[in-house]
């Protein structure tokens, strides 16, 4: 079964075509990388797949639902229930501890559960740092908190935007290892990256150039 179908999607800003007739399919449990240079449309595509923007043309079917037909509150609901987001800048709430940052995602999803949030941190190797504020954590640790937050609500799709962009090699390896674990457990993963090294971890790599799919590589 397909987790994601992007059909002839275009995004047009005035005379600028950020995306032009993009087509791609991701089966459930697969790992896809979206690669491309700056300005190729990676972030625009990620926004559309992540239910944070709508295409000008075409349709996007996520988990059997055409998200281009949904209202903004409905898109919020999809983001909350089906998508786990991992960011290049981590985006942790600065005044909350690591544990509270994970619990924030539970709060907006359903009901906070401290034990479960602690388990998620334990899974990314940060149980001991649960009470630390983001500024007291290293970049790699912050990204692992971000991953714990992304997986806390058992999302069907994990969307990672340059997840290793701000990390050194050892932390990059640790983060990729975590994504492999999630993939092995059946999660569908889409990673946007400009790094060929990171994209090699995926089963399929889609290369974007000037808003169009330039090539599809099966790794």
């Amino acid at each position, binding site marked *: 079964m397909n987790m994601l179908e992007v059909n002839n999607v275009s995004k047009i800003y005035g005379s600028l075509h950020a995306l032009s007739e993009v087509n791609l399919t991701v089966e459930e449990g697969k790992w896809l990388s979206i690669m491309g240079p700056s300005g190729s449309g990676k*972030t625009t595509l*990620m*926004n559309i797949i*992540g239910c*944070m*923007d709508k295409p000008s043309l075409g349709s996007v079917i996520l988990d059997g639902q055409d998200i281009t037909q949904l209202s903004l*509150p409905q898109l*919020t*609901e999809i*983001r*909350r*229930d089906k998508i786990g*987001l991992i*960011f*290049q*800048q981590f*985006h942790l*709430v*600065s*005044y*909350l501890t690591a544990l*509270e940052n994970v*619990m*924030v*995602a539970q*709060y*907006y*999803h359903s*009901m*906070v*559960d401290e034990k479960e949030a602690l388990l998620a941190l334990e899974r990314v190797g940060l149980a001991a740092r649960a009470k630390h*504020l983001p500024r007291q954590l290293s970049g790699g640790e912050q990204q692992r908190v971000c991953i714990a*937050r992304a997986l806390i609500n058992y999302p069907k799709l994990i969307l990672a*935007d*340059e997840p290793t*962009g701000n990390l050194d090699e050892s932390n990059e390896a640790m983060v990729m290892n975590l994504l492999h674990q999630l993939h092995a457990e059946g999660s569908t993963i889409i990673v946007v990256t400009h790094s060929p090294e990171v994209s090699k971890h995926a089963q399929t790599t889609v290369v974007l150039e000037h808003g169009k799919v330039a090539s599809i590589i099966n790794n």
Partner: protein
Amino acid sequence: MNKNQRFILKTLFSSLIRRRSRIAIALLGVAIGATVLLGMVTLCYDIPRQMGQEFRSYGANLLLMPANNQSTMPMTEVKKAVDLLPSDKVLGVTPFRYDSIRSNQQPYTIVGTQFDQVSKTSPYWKIEGELPKNPNEIMIGTDIAQFAKLSIGSTMPISGKSKENSRFDEELTITGIVKTGRAEDNFIFIDLNDLETLLEERNQAEVVEISIMATQDELQRYIQTIKEHSNTVEPHLIKWVTQSEASVLGKLSSLLYLVTLVVLILTMICVATTMMTVVMERRKEIGLKKAIGATNKSIAKEFLAEGLILGIIGGVIGVICGLIFAQVISANVFGRSIVVEFYLIPTTIVISAVVTIIACLIPVKRALEVEPALVLRGE
């Protein structure tokens, strides 16, 4: 309170405590607003009381006169009327009895009164020398003193007729000269009992002046009460005193309320500006929360709750400072302590909270405009 409510409350306090330098500015704004609000409103309430006492130095504000075109009224009836007034607010009750006499062939008006009460109802009288204390002692108006070339210590012969038509001749000693700038400057003042002895008539008064701590409305109520209970005594307002008192107090209160309103608006602007800065600083946080599933409603609730907490804490600080502020002003201007209206304390805290929430509305609107996609742009 469920787990989610406990969690969001904890995160709100974390937000306020861990961003205290920014929050301190907003808190200061709210606290100053609440301080001025409570201070000014307390003064607005207290100033009429304070000024009421000050105004009493301008003389009596209530007159009792004989009803039914009688020339005099019995003092027993006057006492009954005075007993209808709140005793703790009555500062003085002065009866006056007028008659005509002659001195060295010149006609004069002699006024019998109770000197111990005169200073209470007419504190503005300027008296040179002393008030009469003994029989055959009098105080004369300054115009008489000048006209008849009399001074303190000199004697003044008087003659007249009693109500029983018998003639009296007395030699009275002048102990004081009074100057008021009004009719009193042409009167001879004598103790009421002494005058009544001369007139052979007891316990009658023509006019009774009363000085009482009351607003114009309260005075009207007292007048109504006396009218309902007495047929022999007719109460009147001394309008020049009560009207100028009401006019000054009205203008003063308007000024204080205007200043309070301006300060509230300034507070609102201060809080709105600070909260706007807070929203701008927290755009990424708002974007992130939206990206992970926060609805506009929950974002608005969080910011408004933060405003509410800010308003309540600022209000409590403002109440403490406001009471000190009002006390300091009252002590310095009137030399008296304020009387606190306790219901103003919770009212000030509620107003602070409401004003802060109103000030947060525009920043919250801005917060809701933040797009979740912001977090993916690597800004």
